């Protein structure tokens, strides 16, 4: 069945069960991936998946939901029936409706959909990449984590009010994580991830080069003394921190009492006035962009922090109604609708005269810690309390030299961090999770082994 036929099927099944109001989201995908081990194929994978999430509203306008992978006629009927039963337990205190924007026009962009290259081609390309990385340095003994994949999927949203949206996409991903070892030294491991619309869009050479540089450059490491340091966050690590604390911008989190913000926080100062942050799911560099969210609301660019002040929250239909605003295109589809950011863009605002522009990671000669990549985010971030303590890969710059840091954590508080940004470099860099320049922060605690 195609998505139109599924919609008809659901409509007819809902009629037969006397269900007047329903919506659904569906995902249909075909994925192919390969892994190699020292030039040999290790595991080759293919999967065909279909997931259907159906919501129904009962006579009391309470919502019930069911998710199923069975899109046969009987599977759809069973899902509707179970959703109707679940609706008896629907949340009376926070009702959900269709998004008022579910039928608005969506921005149609070139999805740059690619054709599959096939498993054999994936295998050949990954083998070559692994061999090149292994041969690039004698200390690189293996590439234990590697993979090349391509996915082709369709996402659909439709409701009983006549809304119908769908889009198809392709996406490919390459990751190479090398492990290097030298005598009498601890092994080091690092890597690189690249995304593209298709395999042929992926810059394999730059992935190999980045994995090589990151791994080899850390071979000569030293422990760092526990202390407070001037910090330079790489674009990737700063985006990691912002995404980890995105509950500050999230209306769902505010209503759930797990955000550092509250309903009255709009307009409040959150950071140095030199900082602007946007959520821009439709950004041309966002390979995973989606033109609408789980409730069918169109995706759009939204300013979150403007000159250091909180400008907007991200919303679903129900949170927007409670906050007396409109949905922003950030909803999932669930019994309790989740809200999450798409693609964060960080930039320097016009109010940047207080920044210390001499702080440039490529030229500054004073002492500072450069945080290349933050790890263990799920364990080291307490978003509801604003604190973090995270291991990182990085460098100590001292007396004009840079020394790889053996093993250390950076700890602090997000509010302190945002208010103590001392420089935002001019060049923005594209990463897999958004866009940001290098960001400098005064005095964060580093725990090391020295």
């Amino acid at each position, binding site marked *: 069945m195609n998505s139109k036929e599924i919609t008809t099927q659901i409509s007819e099944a809902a009629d037969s069960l006397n269900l007047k109001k329903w919506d659904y989201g569906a995902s249909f995908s075909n994925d192919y991936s390969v892994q190699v*081990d020292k030039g*040999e*194929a*290790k*595991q*080759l994978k*293919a*999967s*065909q*998946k279909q997931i259907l999430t159906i919501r129904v509203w009962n006579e009391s306008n309470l919502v019930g*939901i*069911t*998710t*199923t*992978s*069975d*899109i046969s006629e009987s599977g759809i009927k069973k*899902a509707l029936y*179970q*959703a109707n039963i679940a609706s008896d*337990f*629907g*949340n*009376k*205190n926070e009702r959900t409706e269709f998004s008022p924007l579910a039928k608005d026009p969506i921005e149609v962009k070139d999805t740059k959909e690619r054709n599959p290259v096939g*498993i*054999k081609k994936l295998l050949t390309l990954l083998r070559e990449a692994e061999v090149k990385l292994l041969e690039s340095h004698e200390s690189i*003994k*293996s590439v*234990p*984590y590697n993979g090349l994949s391509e996915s082709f999927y369709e996402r659909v949203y439709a409701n009983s009010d006549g809304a119908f949206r769908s889009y198809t996409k392709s996406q490919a991903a390459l990751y190479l*994580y090398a*492990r290097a070892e030298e005598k009498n030294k*601890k*092994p*080091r*491991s690092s890597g690189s991830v690249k995304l593209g619309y298709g395999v042929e869009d992926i810059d394999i050479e730059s992935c190999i080069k980045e994995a090589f540089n990151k791994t080899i450059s850390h071979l000569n490491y030293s422990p760092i003394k*526990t202390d407070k340091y001037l910090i330079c966050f790489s674009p990737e690590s700063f985006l990691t921190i912002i995404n980890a604390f995105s509950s500050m911008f999230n209306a769902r989190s505010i209503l*759930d*009492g*797990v955000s550092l913000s509250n309903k009255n926080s709009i307009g409040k100062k959150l950071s140095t006035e030199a900082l602007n942050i946007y959520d821009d799911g439709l950004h041309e560099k966002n390979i995973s962009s989606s033109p609408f969210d789980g409730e069918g609301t169109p995706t759009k660019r939204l300013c979150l922090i403007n000159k250091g002040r909180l400008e907007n929250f991200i919303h679903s239909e129900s949170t927007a109604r409670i906050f007396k605003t409109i949905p922003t295109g950030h909803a999932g589809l*669930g*019994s*309790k609708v989740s809200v999450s950011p798409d693609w964060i863009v960080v930039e320097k605002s016009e109010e940047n005269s207080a920044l210390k522009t001499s702080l440039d990671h490529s030229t500054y000669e004073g002492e500072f810690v450069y945080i290349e990549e933050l*790890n*263990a985010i799920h*364990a*080291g971030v*307490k978003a*509801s*309390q604003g*604190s973090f*303590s995270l*291991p990182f890969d990085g460098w100590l710059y001292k007396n004009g030299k840079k020394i790889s840091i053996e*093993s250390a*954590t950076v*700890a602090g508080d997000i509010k302190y961090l945002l208010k103590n940004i001392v420089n935002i470099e001019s060049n923005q860099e594209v990463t897999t999770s958004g866009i940001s320049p290098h960001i400098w922060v005064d005095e964060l*605690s580093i*725990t090391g*082994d020295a």
Partner: protein
Amino acid sequence: MLSSQIKLNEIEFGSCNKDLLEEVIFYGMGLGADFVEIFIENTDNASVLAEEDFITSVSPSFGKGAGIRIFKDKRDGFVSTNDLTKQGLMRSVSQAIEMLDISDKNNRELFNGLNKHKDYSLSKKKWINEVPSIHEISEKLLASTKSLKKNSKIITRKGSYSRNLQEVIIASSDGTYVSDIRLHQTVGLNVIASDAQYRSSGSRRFGSSGMPHEFRLWDHEKAANDVFESSMNMLYADYVDAGQMPVVLANKFGGVIFHEACGHLLETTQIERGTTPFENKLNEKIAHESVTAIDEGISEGSFGSLSVDDEGMEPEKSVLIKDGILKKFISDRAGELRTGHKRTGSGRRQNYSFAAASRMRNTYIAKGEHSKEDLINSISDGLYCKSMGGGSVGATGQFNFAVEEGYLIKNGKLTNPVKGATLIGEAKEVMPKISMCGNDLELAPGFCGSISGSVNVTVGQPHIKVDSITVGGR
């Protein structure tokens, strides 16, 4: 007529699928596979969320699918599909064969048909009717969040329940033909406490496998008291000072460090990748002599227990480390093929869309002879980690774990609560420093995410003392 055609051409749970499965396996072997495995799954899951004094989410879900794995030499091809018709399964076999580029050999003679069906699900078919209803779950969750309403400093209260009922059929070209039903139930409580600029949180999770009535027996009052006390104790806690120090790790979920930092390094997938420092250390000392560590799948009702693993093998009790000496690795079919370590009934996967891999089940450090007080009394200046949060282990074996609830130890006594502590180290260096094990072994349920998805596990240990470890703080 129509009904018999459906039976012949599509997998039906609760029916005899032997002929169809044999046909699919013969097909794969005929195309030159060395080995064919079919894993078929039917799930019936439900989750319920209570927030404050209301049910805010009820989410049933259903799924059906098959994972087909073909081995050729030491390589494997894996295809997953929602299509359980004979045609769909054969298409998946063809796809896996094509991926592996097999074209030269017919191996039909290696398959002698499936063994007599071993049905582990016979006594379990009634479970679906015995698990608590959504109504019953809702009532109990609301009672639990009400129990958390103890003072005005508690600003959010949550109770969550989830039930996973998984029916599986496993058939492979070595004759394996088994069926099973697995039931896992888990319930969690979370609070956030706040007072002026101070904030803290508390959480606990409980879980069982194969015990449909267990949720009814859950003592929600006791659980709520525990979570409340933890959040109150930590509300005004100061940040811990960073440094090297001795620590005592509490029992139950304290075992997460052994699981993450050492247990994963004893899975054969790590040998395959060359990422474990213990690869050539069998029968060598890798830990302090006070440490004996076990991984098993047989403790009745424990969250990581199984009647049969996802490759059709009954789980065994594996003594991984005995008195500090490495004795065994955790192995699955691919692990045995590629590393030579015998299978341990540890081939596990989240669902049909993952190929099985060597994974832990109930993993714990065995009890020693000391009391908790002995351990604490032996430290003049250190940290007591009463409750551990999540953590991670890097590709080179470095681990990092958050301490949810910690107390300073001064002159052999517990003193002030501290927050923000992180334990940092490497298994190879820390295992020899576990110098004392308590006599109070307890287990705790958890979810472990790795190569074959998220699986239910138990972690555990008695109270243990680590002589020195890096504590991250401010």
